[in-house]
């Protein structure tokens, strides 16, 4: 019951509509912003949105420990279920956790070949068969583009939807649009969709670029700074 209600009130449904379902089905996407703007909470919302649809999520984090990632999930989940009965939320939370696997790496110990081996091991031993892979905290530079391309093929062959976080540096942010176009120019062959989080006044605006078409600005979506949940601004 609660699951149904959450699916109906899923904040990501705006994006699903706006991006012709690219956000969920077999997508290779990225969320880009500078540090501390809300990439992780955005990715966690994508993950929870999949979990409530019974899709298993493998959350890879580079640097952050398992407990910290779990806290993100708890926080976002508690905001999403605030208006519902506690007992039901608790039961649903326990159910969702069993569909989620958090895998964390120290920065220096992460590489894509290791990750691929791990995913294959999990699948072969039938320990965990993910539908969605979230990769948070990866340092993006040109040297990993080939590896990313290779991982994209791997993801496709294993039927995995994959989302990355891309951290942009402050000096790159002098002109957001120019910057995004630059990033998009570099990565558009790789990613089906790039979502950009841009702090503007007291809100964090959500902008996106897709390969299908640029349908930006159809809706005014933002992250509510109090809860970090995706919201729509109807005034626009």
């Amino acid at each position, binding site marked *: 019951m609660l699951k149904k209600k959450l699916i109906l009130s899923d904040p990501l449904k705006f994006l699903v509509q706006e991006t012709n379902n690219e956000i969920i089905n077999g997508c290779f996407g990225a969320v880009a912003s500078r540090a501390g703007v809300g990439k992780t909470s955005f990715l966690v919302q994508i993950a929870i949105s999949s979990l409530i649809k019974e899709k298993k999520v493998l959350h890879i984090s580079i640097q952050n420990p398992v407990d910290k990632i779990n806290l993100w999930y708890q926080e976002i989940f508690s905001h999403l279920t605030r208006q519902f009965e506690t007992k039901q939320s608790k039961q649903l939370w326990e159910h969702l956790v069993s569909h989620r696997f958090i895998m*964390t790496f120290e920065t220096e110990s992460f590489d894509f070949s290791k990750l691929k081996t791990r995913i294959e091991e999990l699948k072969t031993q039938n320990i965990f068969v993910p539908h969605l892979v979230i990769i948070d905290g990866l340092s993006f530079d040109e040297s990993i583009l080939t590896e990313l391309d290779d991982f994209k093929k791997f993801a496709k062959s294993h039927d995995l939807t994959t989302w990355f976080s891309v951290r942009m540096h402050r000096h790159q942010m002098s002109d957001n649009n120019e910057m995004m176009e630059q990033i998009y120019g570099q990565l558009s062959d790789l990613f089906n969709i790039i979502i950009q989080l841009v702090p503007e006044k007291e809100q964090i605006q959500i902008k996106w670029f897709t390969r299908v078409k640029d349908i930006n600005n159809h809706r005014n979506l933002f992250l509510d700074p109090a809860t970090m949940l995706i919201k729509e601004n109807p005034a626009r």
Partner: protein
Amino acid sequence: MNTIIQKVRNIGISAHIDSGKTTLTERFLYLTKKIHRIHEVKGKDGIGATMDSMELEKERGITIASAATYCQWKDHEINIIDTPGHVDFTIEVERALRVLDGAILVLCSVGGVQSQSITVDQQMKRYQVPCIAFINKCDRNGADPFRVIDQLKEKLNHNAVAIQIPIGLEADLDGIIDLISMKAIYFDGEFGDIIRTDEIPNSLLETAIEKREELVDAASIFSDELTEAAIEEVEIPDQLLLDAIRQGTLKRELTPVVMGSAYKNKGIQLILDAATQFLPSPMEVDNVALNIDDNEAPFTLTGKKEDPLVALAFKLEDGQYGQLTYIRVYQGKLMKGDSCINVRTGKKIKIGRIVQMHADQMEDVEKIEAGYIGALFGVDCVSGDTFVSPGLNLSMTSMHIPDPVISLSIKPKDNASESNMAKALNRFTKEDPTFTTFVSNETGETIISGMGELHLEVYVERMRREYKTEIVTGEPSVAYRETITRLTEFDYIHKKQTGGAGQFGRIAGFMEPISDDNFVFENKVTGGAIPTQYISACEKGFLSCLSKGPFMKYPVTGIKITINDGASHSVDSSEMAFQAAARGAFLQAYFKAQPVLHEPIMKVVVETPDEFQGNVMGSLNQRRGMIIGSHDMGQITAIEAQVPLAEMFGYSTIIRSMTQGKAQFTMEFSSYKQVPKSVLEEIEKKIKTGT
């Protein structure tokens, strides 16, 4: 004994198993001249470290009971409690932290922040214990103290800052650079007891300057004077920096990090210096008792030795001279020959012999004053009892004691063993509140319960060794619980009128599941439908059904019973009749309330070399484990899972053979969860066949 309380430090040494706590304590005792030779844990000399006073600890290389000892360093008196490193003995760690004012968190420079470091850190947070961190084993291959500092920040949220850097690492560890005095310090002599101070080697000067800047930056938050000095770029006096670091440490907002190698005797003196410089004296810690006369309201103790006595018995040991009670005095003083009251029993006790402990040796003293730790002989009490001066009714804050999760039946082999077993159990249950024992009404067997398989194994082994008791143990059994899942009404009449006095009682109401309590009884009967004098009999009747649930014969928990109607008879109603009616009502409603069985789920963390992580995950998965996550640290991966306790028996043997003895795991109680249907059928079968 040092009479200046500001110069006293009560400290604990807490860490992950095998990170070198006992070795470190041994070095402390040697350097403070409490012992004259160093013995290693699992030492080749067959003696073992001084703090591991129990034979079993020496054999296994682990510290089980926390031995208390005191030593003097420069003009300070340091009371040290060596705490166990295994999670199964966490109550010992918790007790130690309750009585200590500060702690040294020992971390391995290779293993870093491991699973139990996280548990121990949470305990320190709970009791607000300020700490310094010591990164040990800098002489080992793969040592990287700065990675460990990063982990302290990321995993434990400590504002950790190095106050030293090593001169060389791994086999090249030569000494330590002190970032406060900006000097290189070397440790000469067979046991590193000769300190040689020198200039910082040129090759490390730049790093030392950079790290000192980081230190000044972190400490300046706690001192305006230091901030000004740093901004104006004038020379910073050592004392100014020391004071700022101390302020941060006392507030638990800064964790100064020292480093070295206990085994190679490098940096030990500097840890003692840091403990005396940064950790609080007893006067700097607010200790709060509970005022029993005021509904257990918090009551801050003065800590003055002139005020009435408040002391806590935090550990008991049974030695050759009788029961030894470790005690911390929080206020007033305990004098030989004085009398005080045990708050729990209300009994007056007379203080006989008072000693200060040095592992298993002792020194007689005349008194223990506020802030000090000592031990008493001949006092009948249990662990956690509070002693006060007559007229006071205060109790020290109750300690968090988890319920036992595993049981084992034990049987003595012969008559001699029988009486010894009783003596042993009496002592162990007094020493350790998480270890309980009872005789089963059905089988007549003695059942022991505790926090894990190893916990019980150690006590069985201690009975064999210390009490020469030969024991046969049964299969371990899990503490399952029954509970209901829906609200159900009852309306039951108990009527018996066949010969003799009749019995009559009618009870109506409902039962419902609750999550935050084991049993709640509510009386909503109006108009005297059930006379007031029979209400307690109703509650008693319901309570009597809880110890053995009708569903699977396990204790019933998480249930609320509300009675709202009933009937009585002027002649035939009695307490007995209403108790019987309550039992009938319970049975009437229980099965309709859809009872389920809950089992204890353990948080299991396995640290394994990378190459075995797939196998380990597979083994946890096979045990109905839900893998929460894994953390890849390069060579080692830590896997965290939630696994039913019933599936974890013998896992230590399995994991050893699966990983060539290279993996280790810790296990602690996490929560109770519903047993899946398929497993429930198996348990039912077992109950039916009696296996």
